[in-house]
């Protein structure tokens, strides 16, 4: 077998690459699926949180007397009642001052919405009434709502012990940046400020915790992406013996990274159940989700680019300042925006000389954390807008400019200035295919014609490269060195049916389908005979879970490896029974038979029965049990592609109509094109929101203005244009099966494509990007239709 797996397996290969309908959809589409909010246990109580109503204040006192007198009140627990340790960092990180977030605020609150107390009541209505009557007396402290304010000399400090609000600051460089700038024919510099937007999964967070004292068993259902990490974390902080702790992930209505870290609320609910010995349910509502689930995407990025006379990039400097919000929780959450942003910013560019500075600053806003295309959305968007603006100034067509500066296929594997090694791919080929799909030349003609009628069409390109898989190697190359791996078990039961158990935990990605496709092809059985189980720490083998485009590679890879081992066992048993050599056998359509003599064969049920019950075979070697568990920690692999947006802009009103978004995706071997396209569609929808609509706005007191869907504007189906996705398939040379990850490219790249398209449409007005997102006001201002900020036109 090659490292890319044996696809197509002799006689098999029917399912990988096919548009297999998703096994999970019937229950999801009919409402049969059961989410955290559907869990009902005898004696279960409801939890609501008392949340900080100040952005920065000392807690003087908490009075629960009146609250406890209300109907349905069971308990109000504060930090003094729940003695749990804060969630620790999973690994040491040099230079990072990251005071963790306590489960409940202790002495001080640092952002509006921070959990202060757990209210337990008969039902959620009562719990909210009670929470309203918990009297917390605050002594207000100065509030900082921007990194600039937080870095000022006399700024109020979130963590007095640190003596600063700057949590991290580091400059790295590769090549001779200074020399390159000295030689440059052109130097451009610009500062961008990207908008703060959030994952907003359709289902918010939800935790049900059930402690049974006599069984000595703590069961926690959580709408999480990482059941095992949650189990390990809870065991450490509660503390509670990990082998007596079970985490179950019910159906999850979207995560997008926001359900990756362990949240204070998860710890608090589990701790409260331990204390009270009752099953508790906390179902997050939308306001809590907008206030206190992690925020994302906001960075201030200053770029400086050196070019030669031909428009060839010589060097780049980048400074990424991240607004960490009030805490670093669990992971290196305060870093991931600016740190990963700076590292991935060069992307598809052939870059020898790069200097990047990363700063993370604590402010009195909701903590920042992972959200699809972590860090990379702001980086890509600003890079694309910057390059687009420069190309226009130099009078070079932007596609030509990209092509001139992009890494060529014959340069693979490519050592990027950041230290990442891009394994494979034809980046320019992806761009070229996108150019062809949108009929670029035809579009430019159409654009000319429209302009003569007073209509403004625009096009924007964003080629991307996406670090996927997040095994230990890629984590290290991203500068966040943690051990990252997963396991899968594949077993054939006595009736010949196949069960796959994986440590991945789907939030809607279709693991039950794609992992079944992989296992079915390796084993040579029908996909319908494979069932995938996940998300229960009592059932699945240990692993990290589903985030960072890692499931296809690590989940798919571990399933492939385990299935290959089972395949060998199947062949061995059949060989013995059929008195043939294993090399002379092939497996197809659920039957193992001698090549060229199909009548000399055994069905899977027959092989399985023999393996389990035939003493002659079974006693021979206990290795014949038809099961295997395999661990996988893959080498780094990078996907790539290109998104293109076509828009029409009304320069007077500033409205943007998206005509179409086209994407080319190369994620290595495609397991299921329909699932890949679905991932791209979803990412594009979020890109539309990020580019045009979504922004978390705070007032100067740290109050969140956009705390409902009236003000925080998600795109609806009406706002998402037709999307076309085309596939390229450059097999990953080093991963099992040749799989690369995907799912984030659309949100990494489509926002930049949309932004550039709007700027392109308004190029007759000399427009450049100033402010995000591109609401009508920002666009009208770019078009020069409005006077300067604040003034009357």
């Amino acid at each position, binding site marked *: 077998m090659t490292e890319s797996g044996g696809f197509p397996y002799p006689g098999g290969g029917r399912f990988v690459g096919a548009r297999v309908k998703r096994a999970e959809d019937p229950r999801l589409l009919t409402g049969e699926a059961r989410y955290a909010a559907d869990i009902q246990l005898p004696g279960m109580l409801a939890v609501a949180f008392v949340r900080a109503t100040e952005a920065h204040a000392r807690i003087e006192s908490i009075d629960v007397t009146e609250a406890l007198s209300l109907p349905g009140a069971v308990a109000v627990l504060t930090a003094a009642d729940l003695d749990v340790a804060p969630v620790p960092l999973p690994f040491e990180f040099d230079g990072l001052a990251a005071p963790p977030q306590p489960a409940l605020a202790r002495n001080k609150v640092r952002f509006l919405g921070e959990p202060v107390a757990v209210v337990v009541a008969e039902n959620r209505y009562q719990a909210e009434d009670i929470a309203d009557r918990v009297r917390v007396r605050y002594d207000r402290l100065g509030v900082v709502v921007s990194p600039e304010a937080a870095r000022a000399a006399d700024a109020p400090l979130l963590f007095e012990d640190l003596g600063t609000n700057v949590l991290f600051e580091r400059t790295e460089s590769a090549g001779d940046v200074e020399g390159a700038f000295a030689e440059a024919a052109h130097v451009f510099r610009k500062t961008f400020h990207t908008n703060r937007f959030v994952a907003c999964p359709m289902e918010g967070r939800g935790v049900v915790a059930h402690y049974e004292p006599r069984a000595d068993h703590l069961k926690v259902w959580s709408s999480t992406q990482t059941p095992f990490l949650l189990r390990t974390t809870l065991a450490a902080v509660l503390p509670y013996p990990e082998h007596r702790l079970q985490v179950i992930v019910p159906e999850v209505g979207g995560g997008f990274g926001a359900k990756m870290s362990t949240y204070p609320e998860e710890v608090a609910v589990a701790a409260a159940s331990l204390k009270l010995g009752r099953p508790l349910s906390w179902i997050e509502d939308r*306001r809590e989700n907008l206030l206190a689930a992690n925020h994302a995407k906001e960075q201030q990025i200053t770029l400086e680019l050196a070019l030669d006379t031909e428009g060839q990039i010589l060097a780049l400097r980048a400074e990424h300042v991240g607004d960490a919000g009030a805490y670093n929780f669990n992971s290196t959450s305060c870093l991931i925006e600016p740190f990963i942003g700076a590292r991935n910013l060069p992307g598809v560019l052939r870059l020898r000389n790069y200097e990047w500075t990363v700063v993370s600053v604590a402010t009195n806003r909701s903590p920042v954390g992972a959200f699809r295309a972590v860090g990379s959305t702001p980086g890509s968007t600003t890079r694309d807008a910057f390059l687009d603006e420069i190309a226009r100034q130099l009078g070079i067509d932007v596609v030509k400019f990209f092509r001139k500066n992009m890494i060529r296929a014959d340069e693979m594997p490519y050592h990027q200035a950041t230290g990442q090694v891009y394994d494979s791919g034809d980046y320019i080929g992806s761009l070229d295919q996108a150019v062809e799909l949108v009929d670029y030349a035809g579009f430019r003609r159409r654009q000319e014609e429209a302009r003569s009628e007073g209509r403004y069409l625009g096009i924007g390109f964003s080629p991307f490269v996406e670090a996927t898989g997040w095994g230990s190697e890629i984590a290290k190359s991203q500068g966040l060195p943690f051990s990252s791996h997963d396991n899968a078990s594949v077993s054939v039961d006595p009736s010949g049916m196949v069960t796959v158990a994986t440590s991945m935990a789907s939030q809607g990605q279709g693991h039950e389908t794609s992992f079944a496709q992989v296992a079915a092809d390796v084993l040579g059985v029908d996909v319908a005979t494979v069932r995938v189980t996940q998300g229960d720490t009592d059932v699945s083998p240990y692993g990290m879970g589903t985030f960072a485009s890692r499931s296809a590679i690590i989940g798919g890879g571990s399933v492939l490896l385990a299935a290959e081992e089972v395949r060998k066992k199947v062949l061995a048993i059949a060989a013995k029974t059929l008195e043939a050599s294993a090399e002379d056998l092939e497996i197809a359509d659920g039957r193992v038979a001698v090549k060229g003599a199909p009548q000399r064969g055994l069905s899977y049920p027959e092989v399985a029965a023999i393996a389990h019950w035939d003493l002659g075979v079974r006693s021979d070697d206990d290795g014949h049990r038809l099961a295997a568990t395999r661990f996988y920690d893959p080498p780094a692999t990078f996907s790539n592609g290109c998104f293109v947006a076509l828009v029409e802009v009304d320069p*007077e*009103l500033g*409205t943007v109509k998206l005509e179409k978004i086209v994407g080319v995706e190369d994620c290595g071997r495609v397991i299921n094109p329909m699932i890949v396209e679905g991932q791209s569609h979803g990412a594009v929808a979020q890109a539309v929101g990020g580019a045009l*609509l979504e922004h978390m706005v705070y007032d100067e007191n740290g109050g969140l203005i956009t705390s409902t869907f009236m*003000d925080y504007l998600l795109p*609806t189906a009406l706002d998402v244009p037709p999307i076309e996705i085309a596939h390229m398939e450059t097999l990953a040379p080093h991963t099992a099966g040749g799989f690369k990850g995907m799912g984030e490219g659309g949100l990494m790249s489509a926002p930049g494509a949309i932004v550039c398209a709007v700027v392109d449409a308004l190029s007759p007005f000399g427009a450049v990007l100033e402010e995000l997102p591109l*609401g009508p006001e920002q666009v009208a201002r770019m078009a020069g239709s409005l006077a300067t900020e604040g003034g009357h036109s």
Partner: protein
Amino acid sequence: MKPTPFEYHRAETTEEAVRLLVECGEEAKVLAGGQSLVPTMNLRLAQPSALIDIAGIGGLAGIAREGGSLRVGATTRQSAVLADPEIAVDAPMVAEALRWVGHEANRNRGTFGGSAAHADPAAEIPAVLVALGADLEITGPRGFRTVPAADFFVSFFTTSIEPDELLTAVRLPSRHGPWAFEEIARRHGDFALVGVAAALVVDEQGIVGACDLVLMGVDDVPWSAQAAQEVVVGNRVTPELAREARAVIESTVEPSSDVHASSCYRSHAAGVLVERALLKATGRKEQG
């Protein structure tokens, strides 16, 4: 996001609803389609002691012709008004404006009267009612009265309905003159950033005899653009005149800023929309 405790009463008749309103006192509220009231209660911004549900009152829903006007019962669902053939002919601007009100699901529950009674200054229906010169019928313990739309809207979310009164119907006069409804919202289905309901009377020579330009999203009530109306009346609508009206709007309107748009943008957009509405209403191609 759960409401505070409240009593719930379902009225069978208008009389019963009024009696319940009196009995339950000032903290009680009428519940119609719930599309504005329920979200506000869930956010605990409204904490009524009791709800008097009027959606089940037989006589309150439906559209009837009365003389020269159409009488729309207060609890007629917005979607029913939107689909009504007589509305399409006699009050086409109402149908056009309703397409901008939320989404199908909201309009299936939201009532026509509820939209008027709620009196959001950025809502479409109130502006249209003022532009068309509609009358609102109100019933209470002190009897029945009719209020012209221009007097009905008092301030943000405040109308001339007293706490113990009920809006029972809206009378829409039939107007067949040129009209246009223009709006800009952040997304389809959102409340207007700015919008304009324009209803004109134009003679055979093309001279404008009357012009109602009512803006939403620029004041605490639907805003009649007096100065701009005066520019238009007595003249033919030309691109130049429309531009002039636009300039007048931009210099007279004083909208406030919020998270979605500044005062500056709203003034500008109000001008643009009025210009476009005038040209659209009179069927002239926009130029320049």
